[in-house]
Structure formats: C-alpha cells, structure tokens
C-alpha cells in the first residue's frame, strides 16, 4: 500500500484541481474570465496520478486542458489564477492565458492551444534529456482527438527509432469536443497504436488515482530503460469541451453515470476511509484546498493588469 503522505498528496492534488477549475467555471459565468477555457473537472486522477510520480529532471508537455497538469506538477495556483484573469503577476504576465500557462522550472513546457502541439516538442525535450544523460523522461499529455493528428505519427516514430524517453500519455475522455472517439478511430483500444511504432502500449482506468500512480511509477523506469511508451488513461470530462459547449452530443444520463458511479475523488475517499484515514482528516484536506483557492483568488484580484508597454516585450530573446 502507498504511504499515508503519498495518498494524502494525491487526494489533495485532486481536490485542488477540482476546486480551481470549478472556481474558474464560476468566474466565467460572472464574466470575470474572458476568452475561453477548457476545464479538467472529472479527470483529476490522471493528472494527479501521473505527475506525482515525476522527478525534478522530468518534463511534461500539456494540452489546452492544462490546469490539472499544472497543479499536479506543483505550480503556484496564485500565479495561475492571476494569469486566468489576465493580470501582470500571472505566470505569463497576462500575455498567455489559460492555454499557454507554463513553468519551465517546474518542468511544465506549457499548456498548448494547438491540439497535438506538444508531440514534437516532447520528442525534442526527451532528446535533450538523452543527449545530456539527465535520467529524466518527458510525459507528453494529449487527448483522444489529438492522437489523430499527423504530428503524433511523426513524433512517435522519431521517439521510437531514437529510443527517446517519452511517455505518450493519452487522456481519453471519450470526446474530442463533440466527436466521439468511437467515430474518429477505427480501433477499439487507443494504446494498440503503440504496436505500429514498436512501442509498448497500456490501457489504464484513468479515474483510479492509485492505479495510475503505481502504473506510471513502473512505466517511468521502463521508459528510461527501453524507450518510449504509449499509455491511455480512460476518463471522462464532466463539463463541456470549452465554455461555449451545449453538449448536445452526449446524454445527461451518461454524464451523471460517470459523476455518480465513477468519480475519481469519491473513489479515493472511499479507499482512504477504508485504509486508515478519518472523516476529519479528509474534511481538513478539503478545507485546505478551498483555502488555497480563495488565497489564489485574492492574489489574482489584487494583482494589477499589465501596462500597454508589455504588448511589445519578449517577442525576441
């Protein structure tokens, strides 16, 4: 069994991810956040389970749905919230927004506004790690829609022939916006595509945070020793693709089924209560997560907007 600290850390990360993105959804409804954003609610176990395994020398490339990865990588939620509100103290000085939040020091090579935009970058980061012998891997997050982009093919093939330490981590939340995975792909298991590149493939229950954590722990060592792998975490997003999604492509029954019967946080709570944790400890963790979000909101609201002179800075190094 995992150590208490690890379990608590996984649980806390999931709580923070959900609280953060639910707060963003709320702010959106008030018009406090502009543009659009893509929320990770429902998929928390995948980000928490994967990122908690990673070490200082590891990298991730993230997606347009990147808040979960960022929080699970230990990024500062104050700076994230400020960025969402377009404030100068945000991660990107208010110039990046939701889809471009990055923290190179924490190993996050960025959320990405282009579906599949992380594939080749991940291969390149892994190449750096290999050439510099850092014993690090790069986790490339992407969705069931992105795996149909040409860049997956090029990056997977290149990583495969050069045995680059890339863990291609597909988050199959069943839909690419409105397009079901069953329509967009002619194969049943996404990880079967690994075969085409001479890689190992694996399917995981993406809502089982402990299962994900344990599998990725082994996978990390495997990737370091043997080269790239393709792992598919099967999960579900509760909210729409973005903020302007009427969700006409799926039934309320389906959404509610996942929420009621397969929620990753519920499952973890059940497990923890049955394995040495008290209701009190869980409720304290929940309160702590809420407190962190409120602190982030306050930080963000007090941060000023960037001045117009920042329009032209940082185009070039």
């Amino acid at each position, binding site marked *: 069994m995992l150590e208490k600290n690890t379990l608590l850390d996984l649980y806390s990360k999931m709580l923070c991810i959900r609280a953060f993105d639910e707060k963003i959804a709320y702010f959106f409804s008030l018009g406090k956040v502009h543009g659009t954003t893509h929320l990770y609610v429902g998929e928390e176990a995948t980000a928490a389970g994967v990122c908690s395994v990673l070490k200082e020398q590891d*990298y991730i*490339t993230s997606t347009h749905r990147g808040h979960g990865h960022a929080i699970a990588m230990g990024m500062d939620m104050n700076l994230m919230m400020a960025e969402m509100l377009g404030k100068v103290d*945000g*991660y*990107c*000085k*208010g*110039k*990046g927004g939701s889809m*471009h939040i*990055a*923290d*190179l020091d924490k190993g996050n*090579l*960025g959320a*990405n*506004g*282009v579906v599949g*935009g992380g*594939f*080749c*970058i*991940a*291969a*390149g*980061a*892994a*190449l*750096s*790690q290999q*050439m*510099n012998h850092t014993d690090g891997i*790069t986790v490339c997050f992407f969705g069931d829609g992105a795996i149909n982009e*040409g*860049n997956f093919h*090029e*990056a997977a*093939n*290149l990583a495969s*022939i*050069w045995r680059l330490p890339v863990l291609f981590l597909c988050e199959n939340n069943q839909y690419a916006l409105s397009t079901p995975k069953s329509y967009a792909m002619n194969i049943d298991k996404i990880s079967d595509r690994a075969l085409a590149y001479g890689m190992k493939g694996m399917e995981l229950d993406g809502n089982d945070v402990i299962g994900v954590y344990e599998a990725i722990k082994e996978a990390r060592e495997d990737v370091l020793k043997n080269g790239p792998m393709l792992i598919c975490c099967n999960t579900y997003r509760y909210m729409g693709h973005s903020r302007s999604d009427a969700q006409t492509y799926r039934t309320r029954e389906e959404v509610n089924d996942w929420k009621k019967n397969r929620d990753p946080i519920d499952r973890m709570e059940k497990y923890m209560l049955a394995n040495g944790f008290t209701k009190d400890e869980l409720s304290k963790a929940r309160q702590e997560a809420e407190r962190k979000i409120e602190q982030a909101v306050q930080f963000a609201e007090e941060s000023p907007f960037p001045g117009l002179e920042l329009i032209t*800075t*940082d*185009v*070039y*190094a």
Partner: protein
Amino acid sequence: MDMERILTYSKAIKEAMVQKMREDPKVFLMGEDVGIYGGSFGVSVGMFDEFGPERVRDTPISEAAIAGAAAGAAVTGMRPIAEIMFSDFLTIAADQIVNQAAKMRYMFGGKAMVPMVVRAAEGSGSGAAAQHSQSIEAWFCHIPGLKVIVPSTPYDAKGLLISSVEDNNPVIFFEQRKLYQLKGGVPEEMYRIPIGKADIKRKGKDVTVITYGRMVHMCLEVAEKLSLEGIDVEVMDLRTLSPLDKDAIISSVKKTKHVVIVHEANLTGGIGGEIAGIICDSEAFFYLDAPVKRVCGMDVPIPYNLELEKNSVPTARTIEEAIKMTV
C-alpha cells in the same frame, strides 16, 4: 581577416556549423540525409565522420518532427540546427515553427528561449519545377518571433550562420541552391556578421537597388554594365529579411533618390512590398524622384521548362529596364 582563402558557399556553411559544433556541445545538426550521405546538396559531407551519429542525426522524412523536436530541444537548453531539404517543405514544418517555436517566449511571458536554426535550400534555376523551387521567405518575415536570413556570398553565409546559431531566437536560414558552388573569400577563423544589417555590395549615387540572395549577383552584373553607360548603381544586399535594416534602406534611398527592389520570390506578398511601404512611410519618401519600382518573380508556380523558368523570375534585361525607367 584573410579574404584570400577561397571557399564555396556550401563549404562556408559547413565550416560555420563545424566550428560552432566544435566550440559548443549544445549545437547539433539534424535532418534528412545529413549524416552518412552528407546532405542532399552535399553541405554536411564529412561532418558525420567528425561528430558521429549523436550530433549529426539522420531523421526519417518527418519535417514537422524535425522542426518541432528542434523547438523542444532548444527550449530545454540545446542549440539545434534543423535542416529541411527543400524550403518548399517548410510548409510541413510550418505549424511547429509558427505556432510553437516563434511564440513560446512571448506566450510564456518571457520565460522561455528557443535558440534554434532551421536551414533550408531555396530558389529556382535548376529545372526542379514547382514544388522544389519556391522562395517563400516572405511568409516567415510575417511571423513575429522569427528571424529570417538569406546570405548571398560564402563570406556572408559563414558569418551569418554563426550569428544565427548564437542568436537566442528561432532563425530561418534560407540557402540559395544555385549559389552552393559560388566561390569567395572566407576567413578561416570564426567571425560573426550581425543579424539585421544590410551590406552595400556596390556603392553608387544614381539609384539604390535593394536585393538579396541569388539576385545580388545578377544586380551586380547589371550595375557593371550600366556603369559603362553612365548610370552609377548602388547595390544593397539585405542579408537579413527579418528584421529589415530600415536605417540602411532609408539612408541609401535619401542619397540616390531612386530605388528598384529586386527579388526572385514572386511579386505579390513578397518582401518587396514591405520595403516599398517602409520607404513610403518614412522621410525617404520626400527624397524620391521616381516611384518605387519592384522587379520580382511572376505570380506563377515555377515552370519546368528551362526557358520558361528563367523568364519567370527577374533577368538581367528586366532589371536593367527597371533601372533605366527609374533614373
């Protein structure tokens, strides 16, 4: 510096890469057939023997991965040189160059740095037809975050490539395939030519011909011929297309009061329009004694037939006519 030592444009480019790779372990080359084969134009012959497969990497035919992995390696501390065999295939790499490499620094609020060079051979004149002969450098001039270089001589090629590798931004380095065997003086030591600085290849007082790449040599030949007819042509080699050397452009035009812009790339949407705009939107406008003239490629794909190909881009005759119309 010793300019008596003669190298070809191709060997000068290779020397820049070799010298940087010897000096800096972060620099490496990757692309199709660059290793054992020595590059489809023979530019990297010998490099695989010296540096081995770790630093001279043959890739599959995967332009998006070549450029995208270069960006990923660059943002994590390396200084890759990515070779795209024909500039025409930059289209396949363009998403990675434009949406990722060019923008990471800005989108991340200044925290990232993407020091990479993409080298690509461009230009017509070999009968290679429409998909192997284009000059699309203007597309990349339009993307903030990129720098664009087009050298016309072996000396410029080596100095600019060294500067490009040392620059901390993504640089697109367009080599002129018809100039690979052009010989010129190239000092043996490492030297840098500043990015963003044009070079007056021939001083003159009657008209400024602004050009770059293969056309520089055609313009110089025309200038020689016209000097015998009493027209003193100043030939300005831009060398860097992004950022453009606006000061050099404006001051030369103020001096000669006549300007002809010459580029092989087709007219519409070419960088000539941007240069004309710069001139007209500056104090140089008030010095002009004639309209700004452009002599550029025709707005057609490059045809296969050699005579058609030759006449689809500027010729000595069309450049001379334009100069005579202007002065």
